[in-house]
């Protein structure tokens, strides 16, 4: 890994191509990489496969990608916080696959951790179970849920050092930590970019070894 991964937003966007899959963290609109999403909007990228928990709120964050019809398909757990997304889904303008929030975390973590699948009790007896293998372990039934990875992950950090060691803050951490493990290319936007060595080894939540580029948020 290079010692200094700090690049401009424009350079970071070189890895965003039409049609790629992108992991975008955030819960409602907290911890969403809004600077990087603005970069995608400006670049004009489209037909994106988005994996996220939700779609922010109308007019913000992932909501911008929805508004501008840049998304071909979205995998998420909830869209209720964005009325525009709900409308587009009901009108058939946006294709969505719902995944329970905890299962979404497990699947992305499996993708980033070389796990071929996990067995979860969540969704047994519900529509989520349709078409999925059911595996019995010690007399209890579980759904086999498969890993998720993406081409790119966009991460929102509170602090990052120049080599990409990341610290998240409070509930803005949410999906950022696990999404940063499961993409071929990981771009971090950080509110504060600091020198290597300024972060305590125990406060770092995502190692720089997982990060490819750092952008000022």
């Amino acid at each position, binding site marked *: 890994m290079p010692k200094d991964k700090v690049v401009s937003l424009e350079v970071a966007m070189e890895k965003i191509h039409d049609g790629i899959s992108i992991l975008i963290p955030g819960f409602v609109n907290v911890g969403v990489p809004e600077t990087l999403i603005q970069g995608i909007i400006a670049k004009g990228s489209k037909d994106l496969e988005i994996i996220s928990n939700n779609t922010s709120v109308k007019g913000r964050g992932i909501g911008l990608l929805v508004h501008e019809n840049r998304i071909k398909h979205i995998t998420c757990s909830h869209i209720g916080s964005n009325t525009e997304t709900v409308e587009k889904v009901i009108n058939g303008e946006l294709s*969505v696959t719902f995944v329970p929030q905890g299962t979404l975390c497990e699947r992305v973590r499996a993708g980033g951790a070389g796990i071929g699948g996990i067995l979860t009790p969540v969704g047994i007896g519900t529509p989520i179970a349709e078409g999925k293998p059911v595996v019995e372990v010690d007399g209890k039934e579980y759904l086999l849920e498969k890993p998720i990875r993406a081409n790119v992950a966009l991460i929102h950090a509170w602090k990052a050092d120049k080599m990409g060691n990341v610290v998240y803050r409070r509930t803005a951490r*949410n*999906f950022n930590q696990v999404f940063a493990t499961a993409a071929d290319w990981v771009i971090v936007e950080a509110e504060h970019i600091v020198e290597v060595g300024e972060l305590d080894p125990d406060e770092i939540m995502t190692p720089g070894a997982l990060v490819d580029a750092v952008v000022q948020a």
Partner: protein
Amino acid sequence: MAEIKGRDLIAYRTARFFNDGDLVNLGIGMPTKCLDYLPEDVDVWIDTENGAIGLAGAPGEGEEIDYDVCDAAGSPSKLRPGACCFDSFTSFGYIRGGHVDITVLGAYEVDQEGNLANWMVPGKTAAGMGGAMDLVAGAKKVIVMTEHCDKKGNPKILKKCKLPLTAAHEVDVIVSELCVLERTEEGLVLKELAPGVTVEEVVSKTDAELIIPEKIGSMI
């Protein structure tokens, strides 16, 4: 106390299932109302599935807002001393692993087998299940808060849910403005009635078969 009714009564009674020190997850909407009716000697810890234990309500007027701290609705919240934050993957590990004592949710439908439907009305809503499926499958105790009938007066407590399920056989307690129902091996037991409500009224407004014990308590 006598004047507590409707949603307030549901919240009041639900809060009396909480034990001091419990880790409790409250769904968006009506469940958060429980905090207004906590008994004085009961201090619960609020888990929020987006990654914290120890939420302390919305910042009051004039208080500084920390936009990095939000509740399960995405609204700014405070943290109490002793609170901690963690990532979503870890959060759902705690939830599915049975570390949350009580989860409280609303319902579109709930049935006598403990099935719950609260995330989807085909052709009408498309909000998604969020964390509800994990919470209902994982929490030690699942309490459903619901008005006894829908706006048209149709029963919401059914023999069998018709809507897509959130989880099967996981509901432990149902609290409505009329009564408290407990799910047992034998079926739904009418445990308590609201003041002035009769067994006959509950039965007439319930689709589910109810077990009526000799002794029925009062919700207040």
